[in-house]
């Protein structure tokens, strides 16, 4: 539910900053830690001003020790602190898999519920401007496979704020995945603190022709397509999954019962991705409602190349979603309508930047 308090537009990055600020104001146990958290760039602005407001004790830089520092945060979380840890790239979190999977995910379970690990790890997914093989991975599937972790990926500034506050207040380890290309997108964001559920998908565009369930940044691409179709009276349903674990199968299933068709869009590799899990569950639970096999819009079977020339075609976008909708829903558009939609959804920026203001280098 959207909060009813005063609202104004904020970028996704500003919304994160505000969430951190309000969570820290509400609870002195909340601390923010990560490489560069208090530095002049403030993690793309998301931690700006926090050190000034809350002091060096609670707004922390850290050594380049991802596994160790994750363990430190887990230990602190066991002792009444609520750390928010930040990795400028999700790729770096691979160094911390042991602590995340062996300790954070299992502590509550293996000690029979005696203790919990209220830890949030912000993981930024890189893309574009030469973010290459080691700086642009989308690893949500790795974490979503592990029981005990929550893995969320808000797509809007509204959700970024509400879900980050909810994640910080949650008593479990929550991996908060931020796609770099969402950081500068605006949305209406209430001024006051509010919480958005971590386990509910949301219909962001209602429709009945086909269901598109998308994760993180892919929600934006899907939304463009749905809006462009809408002008022609074609109603595509877009569901923002919001969370990769738990996965809100029910919301998607209800939609599929209506549309009979499902496309799942993700920022990660298709093979072994959360797209496969969602499709499998829909097949398991809604087989008879499916008119055609569900399909995936996701990354191909290779790492990201650095050169923008090479990368031009690597990331699926609104056009791919459009074509897939036409195919699966058997939509025959007139030449004009087709041209109009393609015009509406076609990217105006160079393909390797989120917007024209972005001029590198990181």
């Amino acid at each position: 539910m959207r909060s009813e308090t005063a609202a104004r537009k904020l970028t996704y990055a500003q919304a994160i900053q505000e969430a951190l600020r309000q969570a820290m104001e509400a609870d002195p146990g909340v601390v923010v830690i990560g490489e560069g958290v208090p530095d002049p760039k403030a993690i793309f602005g998301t931690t700006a001003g926090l050190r000034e407001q809350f002091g060096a004790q609670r707004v922390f830089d850290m050594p380049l020790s991802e596994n160790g520092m994750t363990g430190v945060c887990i230990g602190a979380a066991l002792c009444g602190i609520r750390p928010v840890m930040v990795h400028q790239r999700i790729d770096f979190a691979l160094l911390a898999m042991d602590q995340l999977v062996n300790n954070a995910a299992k502590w509550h379970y293996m000690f029979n519920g005696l203790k919990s690990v209220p830890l949030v790890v912000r993981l930024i997914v890189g893309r574009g401007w030469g973010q290459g093989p080691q700086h642009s991975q989308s690893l949500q599937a790795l974490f979503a496979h592990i029981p005990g972790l929550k893995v969320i990926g808000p797509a809007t500034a509204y959700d970024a704020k509400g879900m980050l506050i909810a994640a910080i207040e949650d008593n479990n380890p929550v991996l908060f995945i931020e796609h770099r290309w969402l950081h500068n997108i605006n949305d209406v964001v209430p001024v006051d603190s509010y919480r958005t559920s971590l386990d509910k998908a949301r219909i962001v565009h209602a429709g009945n022709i086909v269901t598109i369930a998308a994760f993180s940044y892919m929600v934006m691409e899907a939304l463009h397509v749905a809006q462009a179709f809408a002008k022609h009276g074609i109603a595509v349903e877009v569901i923002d999954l919001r969370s990769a674990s738990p996965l809100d199968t029910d919301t998607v299933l209800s939609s599929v019962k209506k549309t009979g068709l499902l496309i799942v869009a993700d920022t990660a590799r298709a093979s072994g991705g959360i797209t496969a899990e969602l499709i499998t569950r829909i097949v398991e639970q809604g087989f008879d409602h499916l008119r055609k096999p569900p399909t995936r819009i996701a990354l191909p079977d290779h790492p990201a190349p650095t050169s923008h020339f090479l990368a031009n075609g690597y990331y699926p976008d609104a056009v791919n979603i459009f074509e897939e909708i036409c195919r699966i829903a058997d939509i025959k558009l007139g030449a004009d309508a087709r041209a109009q939609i393609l015009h509406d959804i076609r990217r105006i920026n160079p393909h390797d930047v989120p917007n024209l203001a972005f001029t590198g280098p990181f």
Partner: protein
Amino acid sequence: MLRIRRVEEALAEKYAEQQMRCPMHLCIGQEAISVGVCATLTNQDVVFSNHRAHGHYLAKGGDLKRMIAELYGRSTGCCGGRGGSMHLVDLDVNFLGSTPIVGGTVPLAVGAAWAARLKGDDRLSVAFFGDGGVEEGVVHESMNFAALHRLPVLFVCENNNFSVYTPLKERQPNQPIYKMAEAHGLTSWHGDGNDVETVFNIARQATQAIHNQQGPQFIELSTYRWREHCGPNFDNELNYRTAEEITTGMAACPLAKSRKNILAAGTQSMDQLQQLENEIDREIAAAFEFALSSPIPTYTDAVGKVYAQ
């Protein structure tokens, strides 16, 4: 010490009955470290430990009954059976947990110390780990962070010269471990881990230093594991250590030494010691009885508590 020894001897004896069906790492021969270190701690001080945890748990004051029950996989076990020998916990005495990933709990102890700093608590935290632990990068990362912020944490390295069957010299260059801690900016100590008085004296100075805001401390204590790495038996037949080494190692029995000292000093008589041992044995028997008469959990008990509310 005697209590830990007698508990583990009882465990070893009963293990063959195949009712404790989990990997078990005995610390027989190494008891002085747990006892000497924990004697310098208060109840509110926090302890983290590793796979060889019985001694740490008991010395910190962990509930014996619940430990035995845990090994038997019963509902009354300290983890309700979910953890077994390598996952012990007793929140009443701030024994926050042991887990078997080598090095895995060391940063947690640092994190607990960081939490104490943030909350202004005067509690310190302790990480027990072996000579193998220091080979894990995460332990270096932990030392670096602890030293950087001068956190109230005590690192205790039990150097028994082996990781499973591999001697130290096949895993590390010929350099003292405590020197590494010094290079990380920690104050370091080392000594004979088979002499409980030595351990106690070092630990007392180290914990005192922490309380005096002198930053994190590192203690390396040499010791000897008598039995096999994992399991109840002696393993002399495997020949990864010489008969001579084993004899020397066992000759340095911390209990024998302590008993000799006690008798020499006259603080307790032979009779008193025997009485103590009898009491301990009774306590142990009761603990086994408690465990074996405790409810048996079923799979449904294994399903919940994956996520906290």
